[in-house]
């Protein structure tokens, strides 16, 4: 059995989107060509610290869209951090070249080991529910929390035989922050057998990792 194929199996839970958010703001008021720090705070209506991901755009239709942790090719905006608490979604970054509208689309997952109850009314229930056997879905293969000490590494053995998709967040449960490679806290490397997480902060943090059965 290849878990990368379409499958409904309790060993590989389908990833569940428990929250969807759309926000807008302005990158900054300055017309200076220098970088200007800008931060956004939005209400987390789900009431649970979610494992978030998302995109940003400079138009409301998202015709041109960038990953949440990104900078656009013109460097109008560069994301420094994004995290959620039970009540708030925080996004901070740098704006360049003056004020311009910016739009965010955020989706959130819930840690599999959480004891928090997510209200179904706050979920993505407005979307039609479809499972199509001709298509594939994100399936959680391994996930968990891990404290990684200063400059230490932690290896997650998956033995899938191919390089799987994965995500990592920083936090201890009351908040979760999106982790990016080379951002100063964590580096990671993955091959067909294992994912290696290495702390580069010099302090050590708690992380939540999720390795999917889907090929990267």
């Amino acid at each position, binding site marked *: 059995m290849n878990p990368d194929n379409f499958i409904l199996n309790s060993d590989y839970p389908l990833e569940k989107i428990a929250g969807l958010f759309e926000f807008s703001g302005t990158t900054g008021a300055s017309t200076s060509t220098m970088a200007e720090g800008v931060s956004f705070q939005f209400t987390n209506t789900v009431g649970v610290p979610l494992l978030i991901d998302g995109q940003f755009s400079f138009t409301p*239709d998202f015709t041109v869209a960038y990953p949440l942790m990104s900078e656009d090719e013109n460097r109008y905006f560069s994301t420094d951090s994004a995290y959620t608490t039970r009540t708030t979604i925080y996004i901070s970054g740098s704006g360049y070249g003056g004020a311009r509208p910016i739009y965010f689309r955020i989706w959130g997952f819930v840690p599999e080991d959480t004891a928090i109850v997510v209200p179904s009314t706050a979920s993505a229930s407005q979307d039609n529910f479809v499972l199509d056997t001709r298509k594939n879905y994100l399936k959680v293969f391994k996930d968990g929390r891990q404290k990684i000490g200063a400059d230490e590494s932690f290896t997650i053995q998956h033995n899938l035989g191919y390089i799987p998709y994965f995500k990592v967040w920083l936090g201890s449960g009351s908040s979760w922050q999106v982790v990016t490679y080379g951002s100063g806290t964590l580096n990671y490397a993955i091959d067909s057998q294992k994912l290696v997480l290495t702390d580069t902060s010099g302090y050590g943090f708690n992380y939540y990792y999720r390795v999917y059965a889907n090929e990267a």
Partner: protein
Amino acid sequence: MKPSNYEINSDYAHRAELGSVTLTLTIPANFTADGVRETTAYYNAPNALFRFRIEGGADPTMAIDVPTTISRTYSGFGILYPVTVYRKNVTTIALSCRTTDGRTVTGTSATTLRATVHFFESPFES
């Protein structure tokens, strides 16, 4: 409802994957200040969301789904480059690499980056 248990529940969206494309981008040996190199590909899933993995540079086994900086100290460049995948329009995906902060880059060899991009259904109104 506790979504951490395995279940089929229409309260929580499960997004289908719609296909994938591969992008290959060669960064020249002498990549000048604030230069941008990008390559694009068509995909037949308008406004789909995407996840991606980039290989190349100093970490050929690195799989990422977020923009990163790839150190290419091994090739003599010795500085960091922002690399990302973004949606250029509704049916075009791009892999781009740019220099930063006006620094002039000189190097001794070209480097090839490869991105595998998977598309999946957007739960947002388009």
